[in-house]
């Protein structure tokens, strides 16, 4: 509602045919924060990200992204890294080619791919540690390298909002560590980052705040607030987790932090 809010959703409902994947979600994301979206499979995490990215239209409710409706955003505003990259891995492209695509939304068709664009690609490759792989065809990448290449493409876009859907699924520990570090650095630089994850491990190292979803918003607050709210216990039954958040915290007295409990 204020200029401090990157995303404002009010009573947002999103449907696939007859199935409501997200029901009456009301939430606010601040500028420059790293927000984790947690919840079991089918809880609407991907649906929320896709709706913010303008790939799905809400059935009802209101959604403002950077102050406007998602379809009115300027080109290149949102960078999205989907959960499963359904691309053809035999596509004739090198890592550089893929990361360079991140610049395309920013260029009108008469504009050349210039020095500024190349610099952005180089910076992105460096940030994900893939500079030495720039010339490698994407067909010859490991799963972790593929994921880092797609994150680099998103970074090269220089978006104002970064959406990551399950970025650590199926990647090695080193890549997971690297991604965590990248998200922290980007949000420290002022980028708003939304990350969907079903991995509740070390969420407090990834995120400033957590959104707990199970088709409805169960809680929204700092990791410790969310733990205190009890929303975790509501979802952890069907969520694969081994993190310390699950075991270590005693129930806080009196819910002092008042997380925004919705259900």
């Amino acid at each position, binding site marked *: 509602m204020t200029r401090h809010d990157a995303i404002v959703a009010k009573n947002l409902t999103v449907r696939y045919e007859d199935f409501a994947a997200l029901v009456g979600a009301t939430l606010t994301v601040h500028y420059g924060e790293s927000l984790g979206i947690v919840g079991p499979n089918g809880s609407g995490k991907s649906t929320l990200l896709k709706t913010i990215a303008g*790939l799905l239209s809400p059935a009802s409710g209101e959604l403002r992204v950077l102050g406007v409706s998602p379809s009115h955003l*300027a080109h290149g505003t949102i960078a*999205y*890294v989907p959960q499963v990259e*359904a691309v053809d891995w035999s596509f004739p*492209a090198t890592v550089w080619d893929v990361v360079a*695509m991140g610049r395309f*939304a920013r260029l009108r068709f008469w504009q050349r791919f210039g020095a500024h664009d190349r610099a952005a690609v180089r910076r992105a490759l460096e940030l994900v540690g893939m500079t030495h792989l720039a010339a490698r065809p994407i067909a010859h990448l490991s799963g972790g390298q593929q994921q880092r290449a797609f994150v680099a493409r998103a970074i090269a876009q220089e978006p104002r909002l970064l959406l990551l859907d399950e970025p650590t699924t199926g990647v090695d520990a080193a890549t997971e560590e690297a991604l965590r570090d990248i998200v922290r650095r980007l949000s420290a630089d002022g980028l708003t980052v939304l990350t969907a994850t079903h991995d509740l491990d070390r969420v407090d190292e990834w995120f400033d705040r957590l959104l707990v979803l199970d088709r409805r918003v169960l809680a929204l607050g700092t990791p410790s607030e969310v733990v205190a709210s009890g929303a975790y216990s509501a979802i952890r039954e069907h969520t694969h987790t081994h993190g310390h958040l699950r075991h270590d915290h005693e129930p806080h007295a009196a819910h002092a932090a008042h997380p925004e409990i919705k259900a």
Partner: protein
Amino acid sequence: MTLLTEPFHYAFMERAFVAALAVGLLCSTMGTYVILRKLAFIGDGIAHASFAGIVIAYLRGTNFYIGAGIVAVLTAVGIGFVHRRGRISLDTTIGVLFTGMFALGVYLMSQQRSYAVDLQSFLFGDILSVQPQDLWLILALSVVVAAAVVVFFRGLLYTTFDPVVAQASGIRSGAYEYALLVMLALTIVVSLQAVGIVLVAALLVTPAAAAYQLTSRFAPMMALAAVFGALSTVGGLYLSYYVRASSGATIVLLATLLFFAAIAAKYLRRATARAA
């Protein structure tokens, strides 16, 4: 040398070579998208559907490029619409539409008294019959499609590789898909007289498929495909002149030969790389 220049003594051969060059370059350039977006069946479908337009134009005495062009573009847009909105599978839609439209063309044609010769030339092409006004149409449409490839280059590349992420970044994947289908329809119309309805799919697929064997980047693949395409059409036309065979068939056979040569070259390169 006279062997090379002899065909050019005839004006109709000159026109045929210019048309062959344009068709070869255009089909194989668009073929890069056809291969990477897996549109081969769509291309075949548009070509067959356009037959109805050819026959209607023929019966009305108008230029067949106009009839074929209108039907091809409408079919392409219709296929795109079904692809994005429809609940019927794309394969089924194309299968139904293109055979239905093709049958309509054959039906209308069969009601004419002398149709056998013309039918043959539409099915398999007759590049030697390209008239001056045909050639201007071929060249004009080629320039339009080539300009669209240049103008839409980045958007087409991104939406071909990753339409969902491109869309999220603000690039309209749907609009690019429609644009590409219309470009494909125009390409097919341009090629009908040269290689015919049945063989145009080969020219859309084979040179680009050959190029795909030899490179792992998009722009080089497109450039190499264009070279293979032009070699096939111009070379095929030469060959057909000397062996007195159907030009369309010779062109496609040469393209097929180039494809297998590309595969052989790929394995040869791998083997030598391993040995080194």
